[in-house]
């Protein structure tokens, strides 16, 4: 009796008829076959999927071929002959990341060579959370976590999020593009709330296209002293070295002007090398990092090193034409987060937003929109939905110029000087020579200054040195 024979075409027909997504990779991690069910799930054609090389890393495009290759890649253990089960992921047609469990079965030729892996993907999407790390951590857990995090971050920090048509924001966008293409150190300057860290992260994620692997280490400069910075940068350097020449490590110094002198010295020791293998990005409030005191040349050199490319972020009030599109962008982000949907802002509400001075810039705008979104009951955010401080300040701005807090310098300094002299005299029990010594001035100068203040018609001080009867 003749045995039935099966041709390759019959085998393909059989696999295509399967209701489970199935694909096969060769030893070079290249997809050689994908059945119809898999193509339906990933929303791609056979031409897009077959031939795709799958690399086991976490860097991926939000959509498209590189993302697919990352999402479908088996864990490396599968190519060493071990059967394994892990999660595969792809972006479905509406752009959402969907995940399924899959079984990876190696096609073992012998104990050394594995000609490929066949993958059977579960029928249902997997929506569950990762297991608690303290219970049973899976070997692939960290990889999946990093991959999902990177993809979400890339969405948050895309260049398209720098919305606006003002000349200032257009200049920022072009500088961000330039910074992403270069490897020069970047200093991002702006007032509080203007989105300095956001721009830094946008540059970091924009340059991911150029590197296989990347790490970013943000450091709050105001919180670290020399010792902490030393240990942090050492660990970072080790990690950067592990990335190799195809990777990029970025140290992000937040509020770099708040670094202590001791910490600056530590940083300078690490960066003062002929060829730095990692990148420095910094944020600061003041564009003039350099000081004119000439105290230490190394510090000036460090500041120069940090500010190879300087990106200055405008204050929100200086680009009021960008407020409506920015407000709409943030509102739609909130719509995407939850069930409540609000279409936009009424013309009256937009007028109020334009009149407000936004001292805390985009951070304040985002907070305000969050409150207004919560309050809004109609299809649009109206003037009554805005926080009261916005409407009051905007109404006031419409009738009178906004008064900023002022200090009368001469009077204020005189007040401080009188108070210091009074306290020094009190401490010296009225001994003017001792008080003058503690203030670092001569007795004559102390007496002369005191007499000047006594004759002040505004009557600063109590008119008589303490201790003098």
């Amino acid at each position: 009796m003749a045995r039935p024979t099966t041709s390759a075409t019959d085998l393909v027909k059989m696999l295509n008829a399967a209701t489970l997504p199935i694909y096969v990779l060769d030893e070079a991690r290249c997809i050689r076959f994908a059945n119809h069910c898999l193509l339906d799930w990933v929303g791609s054609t056979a031409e897009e999927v077959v031939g795709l090389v799958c690399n086991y890393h976490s860097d991926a495009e939000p959509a498209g071929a590189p993302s697919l290759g990352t999402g479908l890649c088996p864990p490396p253990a599968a190519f060493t002959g071990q059967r394994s089960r892990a999660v595969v992921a792809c972006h479905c047609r509406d752009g959402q990341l969907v995940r399924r469990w899959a079984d990876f079965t190696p096609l073992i030729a012998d104990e050394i060579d594995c000609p490929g892996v066949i993958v059977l993907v579960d029928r249902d999407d997997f929506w569950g959370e990762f297991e608690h790390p303290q219970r049973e951590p899976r070997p692939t857990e960290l990889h999946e976590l990093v991959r999902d995090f990177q993809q979400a971050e890339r969405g948050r920090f895309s260049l398209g999020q720098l919305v606006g048509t003002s000349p200032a924001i257009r200049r920022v966008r072009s500088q961000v593009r330039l910074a992403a293409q270069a490897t020069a150190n970047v200093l991002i300057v702006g007032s509080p709330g203007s989105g300095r860290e956001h721009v830094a992260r946008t540059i970091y994620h924009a340059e991911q296209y150029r590197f296989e692997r990347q790490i970013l280490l943000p450091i709050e400069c105001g919180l670290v002293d020399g010792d902490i910075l030393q240990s942090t940068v050492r660990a970072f350097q080790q990690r950067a070295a592990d990335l190799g020449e195809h990777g990029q490590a970025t140290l992000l110094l937040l509020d770099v002007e708040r670094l202590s002198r001791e910490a600056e010295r530590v940083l300078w020791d690490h960066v003062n090398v002929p060829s730095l293998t990692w990148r420095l990005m910094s944020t600061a409030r003041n564009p003039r990092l350099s000081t004119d005191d000439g105290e230490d040349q190394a510090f000036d050199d460090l500041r120069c090193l940090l500010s190879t490319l300087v990106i200055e972020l405008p204050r929100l009030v200086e680009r009021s034409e960008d407020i409506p599109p920015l407000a709409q962008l943030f509102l739609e982000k909130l719509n995407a987060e939850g069930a409540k949907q609000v279409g936009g802002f009424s013309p009256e509400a937009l007028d109020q937003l334009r009149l407000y001075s936004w001292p805390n810039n985009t951070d304040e705008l985002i907070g305000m929109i969050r409150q207004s979104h919560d309050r809004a009951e109609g299809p649009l955010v109206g003037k009554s939905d805005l926080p009261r401080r916005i409407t009051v300040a905007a109404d006031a701005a419409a009738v009178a110029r906004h008064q900023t807090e002022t200090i009368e310098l001469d009077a204020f300094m005189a007040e401080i000087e009188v108070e210091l002299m009074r306290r020094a005299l009190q401490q010296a029990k009225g001994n003017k020579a001792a008080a003058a010594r503690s203030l670092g001035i001569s007795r004559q100068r102390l007496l002369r200054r005191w007499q000047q203040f006594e004759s002040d018609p505004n009557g600063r001080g109590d008119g008589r040195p303490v201790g003098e009867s």
Partner: protein
Amino acid sequence: MSNARFVFCEQRSRWAAWTGRHADLRSYEVQSLDECWDHLRVAPASLIVVELTSCPIKPMIEFLVQVRERNPDGRVMVVGSRADCRFEWLLREAGAVAAFFDPRSAECLARQAERHFASVPRDGESVEQQIIDRLPWGDFAGS
């Protein structure tokens, strides 16, 4: 210091005790991220220390990202056991200002906390009052 609180989110108050040996800072203790949000709403510049064992890693990452976006003045540190140190770089990139996995690091945590609270402006103070507070009055006897 009403707009900044020192909050520990952990199950057994160990890190709060270890840190307390090195810093004289009043702290609050909670056991869930929701309670952390309650403190952040009242005091936006709070410093939150979250123990990784008190919540799974994924909600922790989401918490870090949300604090970064919704509470830019707030700061989060993550603490945990040695087994958790594989998450350190991910946690730092997500927004943790520091991550400690060894009780001996409690001193570092305390130093950073002190620096944070020293830099937070206090509520309701005029610019003049803030300048006056930073003058070297301590060198002279109080009036």
